[in-house]
């Protein structure tokens, strides 16, 4: 289907199903139960899963395939965001031009940064990209305030021109919309004790993300993708094979920069504000973590990694002691106190600690990230079955990706 082989088609359909039914899947607990705390099926977080998923997929095209570790990709996301908000300020609240310009600007900026940074490799490349991103962040935060609105972040105002839209409707800024359908519009469906929210913005993100995912699969399976893996594997052999690795890495860099810009554009389409912090090196580090945690070089891994980190950030940080006491309300006081005492450092304001420990555990025990973990579990199940006759051992490593 769609020019994908059978295996990829299944994978694509699986991801499609997960994305379409995410409002159900992410809200497994009834609304009034104690465990509702762990529900993630609300629009903002679901959008973030997809947006950071796109960001990580794009980053993986560079890092996973070519092995070039960029520590500055957040800058492209930031540039995309700024471009998107400016389109909404100047042109229209329709998100399509905003997203389009985000991709264009991020692409141009990544072309510039990539052209210079790719003159070096290894950690020198990482430091170069880091330096560019930190420069962008510092300048956006201070000197470029007229363009970026500095620390506050670039946002919409009632008196923006919006030449092919309207500046304001009844004293309010018009909502970001897709040809008239507001991004924040939601339908709610309640079934028994469960509440499911279907948000217009989420489904726009879903469409975009599926397109982005589809393109990534095609790139992975294309001669171009194979060349990128060749760059990672042995650049010397590649050059002596008559291939010029520079345009390949640059193309990968720009494509992943455009993915970052797309993520930035979607981010402002969902929430029209662009803050400078999203360009900081820690934000770049975050996408590296997402990709490696999920499994660099795999197709789905980075999406899972993005979901994992965003889930930690948004769910663990909101658990506070009151909620803990609610959970343990049935237990005797002393025991409840002890449990809360033990858990307390890891939740709420301690969520960074939880995240740090999880990073370490995953890196130490699962070097291939979440995907390796799943593979191991899968193998555990397979081992119990008699080995099928057509599967010779080396065949398993035939498909290098995912």
């Amino acid at each position, binding site marked *: 289907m769609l020019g994908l082989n059978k295996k990829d088609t299944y994978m694509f359909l699986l991801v499609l199903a997960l994305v379409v039914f995410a409002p159900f899947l992410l809200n497994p607990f009834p*609304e*009034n139960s*104690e465990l*509702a705390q762990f*529900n993630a099926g*609300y*629009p*903002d*977080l679901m959008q*973030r899963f997809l947006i950071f998923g796109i960001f990580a997929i794009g980053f993986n095209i560079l890092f996973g395939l070519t092995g070039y570790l960029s520590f500055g990709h957040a800058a492209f996301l930031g540039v995309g965001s700024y471009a998107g908000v400016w389109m909404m300020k100047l042109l229209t609240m329709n998100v399509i031009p905003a997203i389009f310009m985000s991709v264009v600007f991020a692409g141009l900026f990544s072309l510039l940064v990539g052209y210079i940074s790719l003159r070096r490799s290894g950690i020198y490349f990482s430091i170069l990209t880091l330096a560019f991103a930190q420069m962008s962040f*510092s300048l956006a*935060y*201070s000197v470029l*305030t007229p363009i970026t*609105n*500095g*620390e*506050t*972040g670039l*946002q*919409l105002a*009632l008196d923006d021109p919006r030449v092919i839209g309207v500046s304001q409707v*009844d*004293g*309010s*800024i018009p909502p970001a919309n897709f040809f008239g359908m*507001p991004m*924040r*519009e*939601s*339908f*709610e*469906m*309640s079934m028994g*004790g469960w*509440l499911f929210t279907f948000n217009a913005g989420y489904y726009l993100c879903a469409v975009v993300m599926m397109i982005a995912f589809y393109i990534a699969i095609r790139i992975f399976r294309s001669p171009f993708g194979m060349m990128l893996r060749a760059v990672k594997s042995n650049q010397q052999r590649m050059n002596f094979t008559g291939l010029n690795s520079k345009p390949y890495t640059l193309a990968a860099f720009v494509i992943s920069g455009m993915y970052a810009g797309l993520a930035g554009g979607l981010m402002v389409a969902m*929430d*029209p*504000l662009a*803050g400078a*912090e*999203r360009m900081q090196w820690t934000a770049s580090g975050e996408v590296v973590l997402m990709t490696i945690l999920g499994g660099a070089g795999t197709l789905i891994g980075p999406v899972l990694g993005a979901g994992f980190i965003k889930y930690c*950030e948004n769910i663990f*940080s*909101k658990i*506070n*002691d*009151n*909620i803990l*006491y*609610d959970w343990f*309300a049935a237990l005797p006081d002393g025991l409840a*106190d002890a449990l*809360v005492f033990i858990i*307390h*450092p890891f939740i*709420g*304001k301690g*969520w*960074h600690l939880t995240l740090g420990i999880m990073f370490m555990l995953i890196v130490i025990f699962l070097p291939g990230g979440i995907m390796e973990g799943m593979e191991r579990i899968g193998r555990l199940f397979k081992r119990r079955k008699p080995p099928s006759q057509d599967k010779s051992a080396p065949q398993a490593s035939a498909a290098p990706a995912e």
Partner: protein
Amino acid sequence: MSFIRKPLNRRSILRAGALGGAALATPTIFTSRAWSAGYLNEPTGSTVTLGFNVPQTGPYADEGADELRAYQLAVEHLNGEGDGGMLSTFSSKALKGNGILGKKVEFVTGDTQTKSDAARASAKSMIEKDGAIMITGGSSSGVAVAVQALCQEAGVIFMAGLTHSNDTTGKDKRANGFRHFFNSYMSGAALAPVLKNAYGADRKAYHLTADYNWGYTTEQAVKESTEALGWETVETVKTPLAATDFSAYITPVLQSDADVLVLNHYGGNMVNSLTNAVQFGLRDKLVNGKNFEIIVPLYSRLMAKGAGANVKGIFGSTNWHWSLQDEGSKAFVKSFGQKYGFPPSQAAHTTYVQAILYADACERAGTFNPCGVVEALEGFEFDGLGNGKTLYRAEDHQCFKDVLVVKGKENPTSEFDLLEIVEVTPVEQVTYAPDHPQFAGGALGTCNPGA
């Protein structure tokens, strides 16, 4: 240190929202937020949920923790638990200690990380997931402005926490947002006369300014108000926010003929720049026959602690201080101090007051509808919340009240006793026209009930 405190009430949280328990029996109901007649997150059950969005990680985590303590206290008082705190001294008597409009107050918390993006994400999750009807908190202006805009778009009320930049109620004001805290202009207007009295009218000031929005407005405010009294501004230098060592910015001060250094810095920046300035002997310096002086326009007691003995004798302004002796402040300090064992910070105070003011406005409006609340808060005059007579001005949603000019105490008796109040600048002196140039641009727009 972190403290683990048991909430007084251990009942499980029942989420408010269109569903309550009634929907349990019905198989499927489709509702669209756009079609419902009321307003976003209208509480229909027996509880109402407020969202407390404070920095729990990052450099302002301790201020965030103090804000959270104050919110918990406010919730207790609203629900009729504890000693009632400032409810008894508040001039409006609409609140009855039975929650808000008879609904018990529940709350959810989030982490702003002092980043606009993260703050908006956590506010959104509280609105979308937990059904919060109001968002409050924060410890920086960038976050306040970002979250305020979000609340305007989403259609809930935003009660700003600690935010001092003029822009929050200036060019970035929003109809759904309200600020109790004072601002840069007020700091300048309150400080200038005190400085003139203390240091004379013939002074040359050198500004070091944090290179971001709040720094700019504070520099402008202090500069304009001191220049109006005859001071001369020798130089204004912007320092990177990420700077930790300010020596490269302090040494040129030594070389200039300035005799006053104004540090438009907050938080960690302020601690470091002040410490560095004292290290370089600025305070022992004599210039033009006068003692060299340092000024910190916005003091935070929590952060000033980090500068240790260096704050002694240094002037600044603050929104509130626990040593105030009015009834409201005393009641608040007592109930906070008894619960937590130390006095509240100005961040705790302003957030506590904001929570009370919001509850009171709902009570008086008779609804949680943001537009009703906005109407009730606009032009609202009150007293007894620690700052004397206060007006929530309708034009820009800024509170107008007395401003405290303080200075670092020479002989502190405890680790909390760092500042002493030099003067309570009366509200008239810090009031400005809504269209004052420092606040130009931007418009409130109309309230958005989100539905």
